[in-house]
């Protein structure tokens, strides 16, 4: 879940975890209540006192053209905010760094919930490393107008919005309204080690069937070498099931559904169980210390998001693979099936619907998404087409990758399966507390899918979705 967009690992507790620590078991009663007290003391009206401006599609606050905009970024996005400050000295900006909402910390949502309760204090722009924040940010909470401003109802130029890679804005789109701008894409490609493939005499697999067949050969001929891991909550879910177009996490309007009996779901469950059995899929976390020591030279091929490049292969603290070995191939798909792939994250920029300086916010976001500096500072594949092309060209020129890196990555970027849902809860939570311990205890994935599905459906219900 960390490294979601090529950021840094967050196995340490988050800001609020530490806050809780210093309070040492002061009850949630006190915490909740004191927070709410402050809210009650300071708030007169919940919600913004703006008028509905039909031209933007939401109630805008009274505009103050020279007022400073507050921008929340994670550490990896701080440079682009600072670059903006240098290039636009006329726009006052306050940059605040936070944990980027990474690793399920929920800090973005927590803080906005408090501002909603108090009726003031919202930041103007927020960057989040998670892709599913729209599910709550586009909804009214405790009487306040939804935090995320609708962007395609007159606020941003349609021409600008059209410049995004096809499908990049899907996770932030609800009933045709766009609530956030995608910063980077994280489509899944097939990473392979060319030197190992050549040494063993194997071809790069093109389909899940090839991949499965390769696993049997590899297990028999070169035991100890691997083709991936399912020990992390984002791997089996976003890489395998999503990439297999398996409808296990779907949202239709307000209805959540999870279907493990679908053919694609079943085939993927069987594939994972089979490869766990023959030892070519392992249960280690790609970010664990053991993964590097055990498998640094043993990964023959591994489906994974584009950001594996910087987070694993080219990372001196991780696999640190030498140049000229690793290549990215087109994503795996079912033989004869639709050529689709999965996606693991990608950050999103949100504009606040409560902002008092919407013009400045627009200028900032366009800069952060599509300027030359944005391309220069990007740590992953930009979601904006023109920026992506430039970024890919730079990466290809570096000569680190074998094969046609740019071609495979762009193919993957435009073929992310659109059936996957983005509700307000993450599939990673249920995978982590049902499947990960289950597999560790020696059960097969097929044994666990019923319990996993039930956990997802329970979560959906609590979050107010209808479960089908």
């Amino acid at each position, binding site marked *: *879940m960390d490294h979601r967009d090529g950021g840094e690992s967050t*196995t*340490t*507790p*988050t800001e609020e*975890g*530490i806050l*809780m*620590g*210093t309070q*040492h*078991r*002061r*009850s*949630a*009663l*006190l*915490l*909740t*209540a*004191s*927070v*709410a*007290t402050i809210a*009650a003391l300071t708030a007169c009206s919940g919600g913004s006192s703006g008028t509905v401006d039909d031209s933007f599609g939401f109630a805008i606050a009274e505009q103050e053209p020279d007022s400073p905009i507050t921008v929340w970024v994670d550490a990896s996005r701080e440079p682009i905010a600072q670059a903006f400050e240098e290039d636009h000295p006329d726009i006052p900006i306050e940059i605040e760094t936070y944990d980027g909402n990474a*690793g*399920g*910390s*929920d800090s973005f*949502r*927590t803080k906005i*919930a408090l501002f*909603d*309760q108090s009726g003031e204090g919202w930041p103007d722009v927020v960057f989040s490393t998670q892709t599913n924040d729209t599910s*709550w940010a586009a909804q009214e*909470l*405790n*009487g306040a107008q939804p935090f995320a401003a609708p962007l395609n109802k007159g606020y941003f130029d349609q021409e600008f919005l059209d410049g995004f890679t096809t499908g990049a804005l899907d996770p932030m789109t609800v009933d045709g309204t766009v609530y956030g701008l995608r910063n980077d894409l994280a489509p899944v490609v097939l990473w392979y080690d060319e030197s190992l493939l050549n040494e063993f005499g194997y071809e790069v697999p093109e389909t899940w069937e090839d991949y499965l067949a390769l696993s049997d050969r590899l297990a028999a001929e070169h035991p100890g070498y691997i083709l991936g891991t399912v*020990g*992390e*909550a984002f791997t089996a879910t976003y890489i395998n099931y999503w990439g297999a177009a398996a409808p296990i996490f779907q949202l239709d309007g307000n209805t959540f559904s999870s279907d493990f009996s679908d053919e694609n779901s079943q085939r993927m469950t069987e594939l994972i169980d089979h490869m766990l059995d023959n030892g070519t899929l392992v*249960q280690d*976390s790609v970010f*664990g*210390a*053991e993964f590097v020591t055990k498998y640094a030279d043993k990964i023959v091929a591994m489906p994974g998001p584009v950001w594996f490049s910087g987070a694993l292969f080219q990372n001196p603290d991780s696999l640190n693979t030498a140049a000229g070995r690793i290549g990215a191939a087109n994503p795996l798909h079912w033989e004869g099936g639709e050529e689709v792939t999965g996606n693991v994250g990608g950050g999103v920029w949100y504009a606040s619907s409560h902002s008092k300086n919407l013009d400045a916010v627009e200028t900032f976001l366009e800069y952060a998404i599509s300027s030359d500096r944005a391309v220069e500072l990007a740590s992953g594949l930009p979601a904006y087409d023109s920026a992506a092309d430039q970024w890919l060209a730079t990466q290809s020129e570096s000569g680190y990758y074998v094969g046609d890196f740019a071609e495979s990555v762009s193919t993957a970027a435009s073929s992310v399966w659109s059936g996957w849902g983005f509700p307000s809860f993450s599939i*990673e*939570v249920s*995978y*982590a*507390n049902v499947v*990960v*311990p289950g597999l*560790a*205890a020696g059960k097969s994935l097929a044994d666990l899918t019923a319990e996993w599905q039930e956990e997802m459906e*329970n979560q959906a*219900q*609590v*979050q107010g979705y209808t479960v089908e």
Partner: protein
Amino acid sequence: MGYAFSSGYTLLLLLFGVFPAAYALFLAFTKAGQFVGVDNFARVLSDYRFLPAVQNVATYLVVWLIVQTVLVVVLALIVHSIGVRWLSSTVRFVYYIPGALAGASSVMLWLFLLDPTVSPVSGVLRVLGLETFVQTVSVQNLPIIFTIIAFWTGAGGWIVIMYGALNNISVEVMEAARVDGAGMVKTAWHIQIPMMRKWITYMAIMNLAAGTQLFVEPRILSQASKGVVPPDYSLNQLAYLYAFRQGDFNGSAAISLLLLVVALGLAAFFVLRGGLFERD
């Protein structure tokens, strides 16, 4: 003058103690400012996460209270019986050190101890059949793990307090016991422990209050294990999720009140059975 000294505390108590508690009471019975009776409680009680959380906290409390009470008393008796002065005070000091660490930081330390790949005591973990961090922190092991963590951080302070209680027992009584031929065990069982009863009850009540509010340990373990320890393991975590994940402050306040009622009931039981407020 006395009022001036205590006014600061009183003010803070009102602002951050009494007023929030009263506000929670208000929140628990209302929704959007309207009185809704026990609706919030009904919603919370029917939540699928509620009973497992109750069960988790209850299991932990049973394991921990027994372990803590027995071991603290036994250790205090042992320390008290050490005749060598410097050794006795050194032991007390060493016991006390872990308690000086803040809760969160001690959990951080345990994160390393519990992960077989980096733990200095990985041998012990492997003997127990625990090869990975995920296996170590599986849900059925958690009551034991939290007990060990809580004992390690909290027991030292209590041992020092019990030591003080033991010092309070008059020399004549102890001497009489010795003259009657009571050994160490008999003295402890018939004289020292009965005379420490109030202290033991006091410890049980304080631990009960702390234990029902289990939050820091499971929360940090949950984040460190990337969710293998569920984020809704304890009741307080559930209250936290209600408030901040679901934006349902009313439900959160309802959980807090339920927790308060249960903890008060149990504490009352201990007070009455332990004779905490009886005069000699």
